[in-house]
């Protein structure tokens, strides 16, 4: 019994766990004394709330924080995904489809039409990002999930890597271009140079919907290229 324990969990692991539990207790105590749950702790965010919709024109205030006040974070985040897609492609080479299924009428139809349906939902969520919950990330991931369904169901696959890569690059460059136009027009990178419009309408909030569309397509294409690598065979020592 003790032998088995020793093999499974080493002593240092158990010691570390004890330390971690102590850390958790300390963290919980600190949290409850210094920042009581459910109380108003806003400082900077209070100014966001005060400015309300008039600052950026977005009805969804999270969107206005993500894409206007902290737009640089979002550019960085898109870059993380880009780096991730690049790194996955470095390790896993593209190859043939890993597994095949028996052809079946229902599956065939589903494989053909489901991605479009899911993609449509994704596109809707991307386009409404400045109004309702959702936006570029969520919509982009939904589009990628649609493709994932296709990968699960379809027996064969046409891969157009050139198109995917161009899409990724183009969307990244478009994001930067919009930022640079802001730099030229307003003197500050990612400045919102389009009119804010009426809060709550589809064509409002200046460049925010535009940025979310770029992000949506970019996120979708990054994840599709990542998923593609995970569902194909590794050919040894390819690029």
């Amino acid at each position, binding site marked *: 019994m003790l032998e088995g324990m020793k093999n499974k969990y080493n002593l240092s692991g158990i010691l570390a766990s004890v330390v971690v539990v102590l850390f958790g207790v300390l963290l919980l105590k600190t949290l409850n004394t210094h920042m009581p749950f459910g109380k108003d702790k806003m400082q900077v965010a209070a100014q966001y709330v005060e400015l309300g919709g008039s600052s950026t024109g977005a009805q969804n205030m999270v969107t206005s924080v993500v894409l206007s006040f902290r737009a640089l974070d979002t550019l960085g*985040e898109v870059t993380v995904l880009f780096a991730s897609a690049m790194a996955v492609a470095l390790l896993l080479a593209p190859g043939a489809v890993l597994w095949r299924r028996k052809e079946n009428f229902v599956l065939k139809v589903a494989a053909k039409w489901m991605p479009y349906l899911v993609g449509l939902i994704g596109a809707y969520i991307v386009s409404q990002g400045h109004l309702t919950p959702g936006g570029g990330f969520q919509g982009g991931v939904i589009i990628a999930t649609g493709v994932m369904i296709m990968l699960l169901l379809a027996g064969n696959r046409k891969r157009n890597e050139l198109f995917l890569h161009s899409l990724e690059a183009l969307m990244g460059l478009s994001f930067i271009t919009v930022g640079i136009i802001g730099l030229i027009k307003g003197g500050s990178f990612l400045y919102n140079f389009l009119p804010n419009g009426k809060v709550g309408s589809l064509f409002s909030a200046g460049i925010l919907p535009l940025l979310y569309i770029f992000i949506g397509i970019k996120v979708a294409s990054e994840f599709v290229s990542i998923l593609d690598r995970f569902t194909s065979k590794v050919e040894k020592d390819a690029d």
Partner: protein
Amino acid sequence: MQINFYTLSVFLIVLGLIGIFLSRDFIKTLIGIAVLESGVNLLLISIGYIDGRLAPILFNDELKKSAVGMVVDPLPQALVLTAIVIGVGLLAFGLAMAVWMNNRFGTTDVSELKELKG
């Protein structure tokens, strides 16, 4: 009844760390990392929560006029949105390493890898 979500998030953080320390299978380590990250995300959102307030979306005209004192903190939500996507980016790379390792050595056990000759 008031539920304190700090407890749940700290529980997830501790559990994730224990999972990372105790597991030798790299896949299980990745699961531990995912649990840890979820805990941290929940922690950030809990810090931004304010009792009796609405989501930071200006649904009606009253909110559009002035949302002061009506909505929860929007900033942590934006941060968590960023953190979630960063987390899945890291996860994809970790899984790619695991798959590569399995393909080459037939195992994802990190301690076994040390004994193999490559």
